[in-house]
């Protein structure tokens, strides 16, 4: 499930224009024309970018009459946070092991030269 979904999200966000659009949308919903304004690219190209973001579930178009505003899907970022959190925990797990190695070093070294004791 999430792995593929997240691959799509990260791939969608790999493009600087699309990341910029997401930044714009973080401020609030926007129409396609509003979104297109800052870029020297065709409206068609903007639609293409939006399609990638939409397919990845990063944004959605609100239903109703045109112009339908584009909205950022906040849950997507919760998912990414979770992903990064797992990575973080794995690193943390590794560093707990490093803590143990350092504690051992501290022990043997305070045994050898009584000059340097550290941390209770």
């Amino acid at each position: 499930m999430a792995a593929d979904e997240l691959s799509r999200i990260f791939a969608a966000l790999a493009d600087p224009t699309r990341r910029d659009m997401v930044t714009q949308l973080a401020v609030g919903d926007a129409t396609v024309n509003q979104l297109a304004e800052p870029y020297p690219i065709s409206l068609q190209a903007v639609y293409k970018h939006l399609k990638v973001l939409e397919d990845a579930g990063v944004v959605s178009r609100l239903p109703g009459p045109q112009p339908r505003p584009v909205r950022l899907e906040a849950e997507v970022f919760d998912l990414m946070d979770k992903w990064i959190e797992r990575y973080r925990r794995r690193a943390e797990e590794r560093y707990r092991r490093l803590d143990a190695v350092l504690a051992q070093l501290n022990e043997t070294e305070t045994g050898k030269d009584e000059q340097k004791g550290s941390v209770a």
Partner: protein
Amino acid sequence: MNNIAETQIEADPNVPIIRLTREFAGTPEQLFRAHTDPRLFAQWIGPRSLQTRIEEWDARSGGSWRFVSTRDGEEHAFRGCFHDVRPDRIVQTFTYEGDPDGVALETLWFDDLGNGRTRLRGQSLVDSFESRDAWLKSGMETGANEGYAKLEEMLADGAI
């Protein structure tokens, strides 16, 4: 070993970099040794469920390294070069041999905080957001294994 700050991770939104910070109850010199002495390194690098076998280890500027993680006969090899090895900073490359085209450039800093404490700062630069994606995802896949479940248990027990 009580109030140790947990690892902080930051995925930069503009460049494909993962940054990491963690404080340790150890001197910069000890931390340096834990990263350069192969015997010490093998003790902490891999998940507990894996065996780490160091195959090559020359922790000098211009030297190279390679280690293999094994579990139930399944092997994963990693290799790279020590680009710059100094007491306060290590710069190295990192490649998972299962994805030989992917090369990460890693920098580690050992900041002396005094009183036998050190802040480790690490940075991994990969060549694209897609690579970082794969990188983080590999964390997730490993996360699904038993080692991660074990960590969850420890968290639930309040052991962490």
